[in-house]
């Protein structure tokens, strides 16, 4: 039970997505999940052990680390991946509900339970809005927690029990910063994909509605 579960979940969602939705799933798999598991996790593995302060006072390093990293970047990244993938489940639930209804009434109620129309369109749009919202929330959280997306080499700490202002050195700051920028870039790409999909669906169904009404008026 690990990221494979999320991968299976998203593969299931893929069936009911539009073309842009499938590109989104591919971006999340390749550029976010795979990069996280294969590269990013190892960079942050020993962040606490390799965080060194210029002091022998016991407890000073612990306290300074906790002050400068309230929640680790890698944990926020993992939470972001999980939260951003979850709204797609709404669509899966809705399709399952439609199929259940058809079984219950023993007749064909929908032309195709997996086709994005009517109520399923609303659910799909809501899931897109939620995905985009959560991406933005996490980006803002990253920005606010760490004063931007920069990781300094040196931080100055003067919290008890550190006796004075102490120099503390963060491990692999450049590598962490590169991956952080990568995370921001892929998040922005996913936001752009979600917004394009949203606009595409709204545009497509508005045109459909307009044409239907136009045909009715002509008749």
């Amino acid at each position, binding site marked *: 039970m*690990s990221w494979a579960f999320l991968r299976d979940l998203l593969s299931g969602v893929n069936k009911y997505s539009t073309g842009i939705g499938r590109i989104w799933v591919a971006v999340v798999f390749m550029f976010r999940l795979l990069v996280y598991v294969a590269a990013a996790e190892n960079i942050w593995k020993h962040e606490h052990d390799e965080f060194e302060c210029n002091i022998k006072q*016991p*407890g000073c390093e612990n306290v300074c680390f906790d002050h400068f990293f309230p929640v680790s970047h890698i*944990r926020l990244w993992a939470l972001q991946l999980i939260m951003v993938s979850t709204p797609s*489940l709404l669509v899966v639930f809705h399709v399952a509900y439609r199929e259940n209804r058809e079984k219950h009434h023993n007749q064909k109620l929908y032309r195709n339970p997996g086709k994005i129309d009517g109520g399923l369109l609303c659910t799909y749009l809501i899931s897109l809005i939620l995905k985009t919202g959560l991406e933005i929330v996490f980006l803002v959280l990253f920005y606010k927690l760490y004063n931007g997306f920069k990781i300094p080499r040196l931080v100055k700490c003067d919290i008890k029990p550190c006796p004075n202002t102490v120099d503390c050195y963060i491990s692999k700051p450049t590598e962490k910063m590169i991956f952080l920028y990568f995370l921001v870039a892929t998040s922005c790409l996913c936001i752009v994909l979600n917004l394009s999909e949203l606009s595409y669906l709204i545009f497509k169904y508005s045109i459909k509605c307009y044409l239907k009404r136009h045909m009715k008026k002509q008749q």
Partner: protein
Amino acid sequence: MDWGTLQAVLGGVNKHSTSIGKIWLTVLFIFRIMILVVAAERVWGDEQQDFVCNTLQPGCRNVCYDHFFPISHIRLWALQLIFVSTPALLVAMHVAYTRHEKKRRFRNGEKIDIEELKNEKIHIRGPLWWTYTSSIFFRIIFEAVFMYVFYYMYDGYQMPRLVKCDAWPCPNTVDCFVSRPTEKTTFTIFMLAVSGICMMLNLAELCYLVIKICMKECRKTT
């Protein structure tokens, strides 16, 4: 044998659950088990190693760590998830027993609706209703018990940065520093919130089942 086994077992129970039960299962898998495995275990990974005490006395750090963390949060969560998932097995066993009985009666020559036997969904009525409702009741009890155990053992849900320890062999009162207290507090509150949501879902499912059966009884009598 790992969390995947639990996933396989509970996945089987999913077919016979109500819609709220299916939502509960999803929340359990994604927001509890997955978060535990991919994030929380890493946060608590170095908890003893990075538990630092302001003393050179050998053994003092060990004794203080053991005094303040009798059972690690991670282990308590793992136990909580196992206990909370187990009542669903009652339902799985009951369904298996019902199917077994039907097959036995079919083999003995009784006329059984083959369609229903082949059809995998078994409706929640009669004795199965009681089993299902008891399983939800036990789930709620286990959740509440574990939430209380956490509160009682750790004096609330906040992880302190500094603990003062004077257990033997520490010479005097010694300052000990916990590693990553803020991150641990964040995850503790997150897991608490999700436990609360799961409890609400279970209560809602319980009310739904009770109301459904009451309405059925009312329709029968009128």
